[in-house]
Each structure stands twice: as structure tokens, then as C-alpha cells.
């Protein structure tokens, strides 16, 4: 803890403002909330839609390349869990999620849950009473990748946010969430 720090600005508010000005758009209330909340969006989606479902697109352990190692502050080649999911309500895709989780920083139980159960990382964090600090890295509008176009059946722009969750002073999850800009308009 740093006693010399002055109160920091609200990073989310500044990033959202920057996004709105740069793209000349206004985000809706719900979009703003989804961009600014601490931690995964699933708890908000649960409240808005009733329990949302999880469809796992890909889930496996692999060795971190340079880019992922940098995100997670681990060594290149360390094992990570890669998770690519869609949160959906009755089959309608709501949010795409990509997570990198350093295997060495998780208990076996958490890793088993990640690998074997259709449970979101957000729900796993809640259930296991994991204390975290959220570091918001990016809130941006981006053109969709081919995967996103195919999953959401649209070629419109996407709202993307990227953040890290810190636990015991280490990054335990790096996440990206994305959804079409026309979603969550009200």
C-alpha cells in the first residue's frame, strides 16, 4: 500500500469518455456499466436476463507465448488455461469472452472447474471467495474478427474491454469481452 498516492481518477469513466469522443457516439447506460464494472460481466447479465448460459468455444492448457506472458506477467512457456466462451440467453449470443489464466496461480480445484465445468470464471471467483483487484486496461471500439462476425452474424463494430484481475499481487486472469455495438442499447 502506498501512503503517498493521491486519489486516482476513475479510469473507466475516462476511457469511456475517450471512446465516445473518438468515435462520435454515445454509449447507452447499460453499455457504460458493462464497460466500467469491476470483474466479469456475468453478474450484470444474470440480473438483466435471468441466469445466462455459457457456451465454451475452446478450452485448453497451452504454453504462454510472448504476448500472453506479458499480459499475465509470467515467463514465456509457462502453462496457461485458455478459455474462449460465449455468454448467451437461450442460444442468443450476448458477450464473447477470452481469458488467459496462469495455471501455476490456481488451485487444482479451480483448474478442474475451468476445464470440466460450464461455469464462468466470474462465477468461479464468487464461489471460491477470491479477493481481487480489477485493473481496467482497454475500452475500445474495434472491427470484428472473422470469428466474431461468424458468432454474432454481423459485421458491425464491437465494443471491447480488456482487464486483469489481481489476486495476492499477481495477475490471475486476463480477460477480453466483446459484443456488437448495437447490443445493450436498452
Amino acid at each position, binding site marked *: 500500500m502506498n501512503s503517498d498516492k493521491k486519489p486516482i481518477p476513475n479510469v473507466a469513466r475516462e476511457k469511456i469518455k475517450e471512446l465516445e469522443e473518438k468515435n462520435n457516439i454515445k454509449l447507452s447506460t447499460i453499455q457504460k456499466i458493462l464497460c466500467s464494472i469491476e470483474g466479469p460481466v456475468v453478474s450484470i447479465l444474470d440480473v438483466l436476463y435471468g441466469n445466462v448460459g455459457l457456451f465454451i468455444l475452446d478450452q485448453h492448457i497451452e504454453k504462454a507465448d510472448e504476448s500472453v506472458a506479458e499480459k499475465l506477467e509470467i515467463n514465456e512457456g509457462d502453462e496457461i488455461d485458455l478459455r474462449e466462451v460465449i455468454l448467451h440467453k437461450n442460444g442468443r449470443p450476448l458477450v464473447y469472452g477470452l481469458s488467459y489464466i496462469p495455471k501455476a*496461480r490456481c488451485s487444482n480445484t479451480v483448474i478442474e472447474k475451468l476445464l470440466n465445468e460450464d461455469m464462468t470464471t466470474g462465477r468461479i471467483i464468487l464461489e471460491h471467495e477470491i479477493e481481487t*483487484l480489477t485493473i481496467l486496461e482497454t475500452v475500445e471500439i474495434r472491427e470484428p474478427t472473422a470469428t466474431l462476425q461468424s458468432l454474432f452474424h454481423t459485421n458491425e463494430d464491437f465494443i471491447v474491454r480488456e482487464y486483469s484481475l489481481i489476486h495476492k499481487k499477481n495477475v490471475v486472469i486476463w480477460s477480453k469481452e466483446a459484443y456488437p455495438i448495437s447490443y445493450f442499447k436498452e
Partner: protein
Amino acid sequence: MTQEKNEANKALIDKINEVEEDYGKTFSNTQKILLTTDGSITAILDVLYGKITLKTLDQHFEEADAEHARLVNTPKGEQINFREVIMHKDDKPLIYAISHIPLSRCNDDICSDLIRADIPIGRILKNYDIESRREIRNIYIEKPNDRIKEIFGTDEDMLARDYVIINSDEILMWIKEVFPVSHFTEI
């Protein structure tokens, strides 16, 4: 990430649904989010309204009575910081909040921030890189007391929730937040 399983937060949607059914009214999405979020409410209001400000109505130390001790899980008689604040945008009061913080669980820096300035708790936690989690205890409708009526200038029913912020497996603070049922219906 090693802790054991907890189901305390599982029923948040059920809690909201129950309050809606009992009250016979559907709450807005923003109201539901403000009542159930496990993140900082100040951060959300900041994003929705532009920078909001905090006015401290009261801030003092007192010895925990049986009820306060129960809320923060400390022995009776322990020193706690009591804080009563209004989050507002310009002159409009948005949310009234009270908090109890056991002194033994916050370091000197956090204590001095709590005492010296109108800094929201969420921002204090962020400032000092505090890893934490929130457990929503109750979500309910309540009648306003005279103080709340005066603050909001209304005698309508209030939506309220109370929750604890947990750090290092101990309750760092207990917080109650209250706002009129007509607030956050349009935004």
C-alpha cells in the same frame, strides 16, 4: 485462487425477484444493477453522471455495541469508524450510505483517508490496491426516517441494500446504501 466454495452470492437475482414480487413493482435495469453489483457503486455513478461528489454528513469513532459488532464480526466494544455520506451530482442527492469500519482492520493510510476527506470507499480501496470481494447481505424496501426524508426531499419508499467488503478473509467494512424508489428509473 485457492479458496473453498461459497454460495452466498448465488441468489442475488432471486433476492431482487422476491423484493419486486413483494412490492408489486418491477425495478429498472439500473436499479437492479445498483442493488446487486459486487463492484463499486461510486464507479458506476461516476460513469453514468460524470464525476459525482461525496458529502460526509457524519464521521466519528465509537465503540461497537452488540448490533454493530455483529455486522462487522468484531468483539463488542471494539473501536469502529462510523461514516454517513451522500453521493450527489451537483445539488441532487443520489445515494445515501452509512458504513462501519473496525479500526483494527484498516491501516493508518486508509483510516486517515476515511477521516480527512470526502473520498468514496471504492476509490480508497482502489487507491491502496486493496484486493477484496463484496458479499451482498440484504436487498429490501424500507420506509424513510425523518433524516432520509429531509435529505432526499421525499417521503416515498426507499430501495436499500447492505453488504460487507471482505479483505484477507475478514470484514473490512459493512455498508448500507439507500435511494428513493423513483431514482435511477430513467437513466
